[in-house]
């Protein structure tokens, strides 16, 4: 008996599902069988998540098409997908960082196929996604760091951190929902400047003035932006230096080299094409 025969025989005794039952069955099977154990760098352990499905992959690709119009929604879309697929304590979701996001993106993509090719001006670059995943596994997740600056007897202390994935998704949403202009040239300027401030604000965990906390984390994005815009320039410089260190360490992992060719692999919808 070949597979085809056994298939037919089994089918005859099977329960033929209606549409609602079929969707429910696929949902149950997804939780049981289509799962991945992903190493989460910030938590230093593996977590179980469902694999991304076709609908989710489609929305990731759509987010990439949006980014061609300078309106990237990748982080927001991807966070929603991870939230939907997360099979463990949901509280952890609020603590995932952008390093964890990178791991989740690369691991999900690697699960689809290890083949990933990038077209460069000088040629094609074959990316070994498993290498990136392994580097992320070994990555020493940065801890928060306090930077202080005193002027005229007033001490301002800023605690930096790796940005939180959920907050990054919220910031992205905020930027694109608050665009003031329709003009393309001004649109780029507006998005770039807003992204710059928002990006800076996302690396900050806490701000204290003379040991008094602002409860930075509970502020709205708008409030956070207003606050960081008023930080002393000397402190901003130090914070930038720290941000640079964190960013460089992540970029190092996401940069692939092949001979003279080198490319930073952006984490966006194109990864899932």
């Amino acid at each position, binding site marked *: 008996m070949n597979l085809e025969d056994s298939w037919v025989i089994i089918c005859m005794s099977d*329960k033929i599902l209606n549409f609602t039952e079929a969707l429910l*069955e696929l949902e149950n099977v997804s939780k049981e*069988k289509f799962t991945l154990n992903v190493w989460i760098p910030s938590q230093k352990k593996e977590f179980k998540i469902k694999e991304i*499905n076709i609908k989710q992959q489609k929305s990731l690709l759509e987010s990439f098409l949006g980014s061609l119009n300078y309106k990237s929604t990748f982080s927001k879309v991807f966070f929603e997908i991870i939230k939907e697929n997360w099979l463990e304590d949901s509280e952890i979701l609020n603590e995932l960082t952008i390093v964890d996001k990178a791991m989740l993106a690369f691991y999900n993509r690697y699960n689809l196929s290890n083949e990933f090719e990038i077209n460069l001006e000088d040629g094609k670059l074959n990316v070994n996604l498993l290498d990136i995943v392994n580097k992320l596994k070994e990555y020493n997740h940065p801890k928060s760091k306090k930077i202080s600056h005193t002027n005229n007897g007033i001490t301002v202390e800023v605690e930096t951190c790796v940005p939180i994935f959920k907050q990054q998704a919220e910031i992205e949403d905020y930027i694109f929902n608050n665009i003031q202009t329709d003009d393309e040239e001004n649109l780029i300027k507006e998005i770039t400047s807003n992204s710059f401030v928002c990006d800076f604000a996302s690396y900050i965990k806490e701000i204290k003035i003379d040991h008094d906390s602002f409860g930075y984390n509970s502020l709205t994005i708008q409030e956070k932006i207003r606050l960081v815009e008023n930080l002393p320039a000397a402190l901003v410089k130090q914070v930038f230096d720290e941000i640079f260190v964190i960013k460089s360490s992540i970029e190092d992992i996401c940069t692939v080299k092949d001979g003279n060719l080198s490319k930073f692999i952006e984490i966006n919808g194109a990864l899932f094409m």
Partner: protein
Amino acid sequence: MDYFLYSVDLPFSQKKIFYREINSREQFLLAKFASLHPYGKENDIDFFIALNKIILNCVENKKDLLELNIVEYILFLLKIRILSFDNFLELELNPNSEKEMKEKISIDLNTFMKKFYEASSKLMENNIIEYNGIYVNLSWPDTKIAISFLENENIDISTTFVEYIKYLKTKEKTIVLNNFTKEEKNKIYENLPSKLQVLIFDKIVKSIENLFTENLFSIKSLNWLNFNFYNNIYLYFIKLLFSSDIKGLYQQYYVFASKNINLFFIDNMTTADRKVFMSLIEKELDNKEDLMNNLNSTSEGMTPLESLVDEFGG
């Protein structure tokens, strides 16, 4: 009453279709439709729909025919075409330049059918994909669905892949996709893991490619005629298969009618019947001609008296 005396076993669905030959009236209708409607996607689809109505008439187990996938349906069309007409499709190719001559080609439909079956079998070999306990059974899309692929000029092929899935099976539970509407099918498909989609995609693309790159006609000048279900070339080919010489058919009707053969009887004749009748009529004409010639030849060189003696004996 129709008798469906012929049968064919179809290779993928294992269905046995009982059928009869296409009769004169049906051949006439098809020839008329083909000659009145120029070639082009819209007209080719219209012809295909008209052809389906006629073919359905020639089949006893109509439900089974309607459930065939596009590949099996084409195989059946070839079979009924060969039985009803003959196994050659004669074509005249226009030259590419004035220096070249018109090329007459003859496609052996039996060879074409064999090659078409072999090329399309690629999808059906190991057509079950297993991924973490879920089994996906792939098959060529249903005929009606395949035709709908042509409705959209810029169709994204990957959006049609759901139509290649026959069953999904988990432990003791089966999801038969044909039981669902198009929207429901898509919703089920969207809930499959992307990894499984990669496997399905890979298998289908390779199968389509295999069909697309094969020179099914075994004729060098027809290398360009790629067969796949995303353009109307295959419908164009089917139209050619069932297009007949309408003038010739009119002549045959005229000849039979002049011999007082009942019109209803003519309508129900097959091509083979008509050939036999035509040969009888030709023979009859030949005999008459021979008799006249004999009369003429014996009369030549004789005096009127000798002729009379010859005719009445003496």
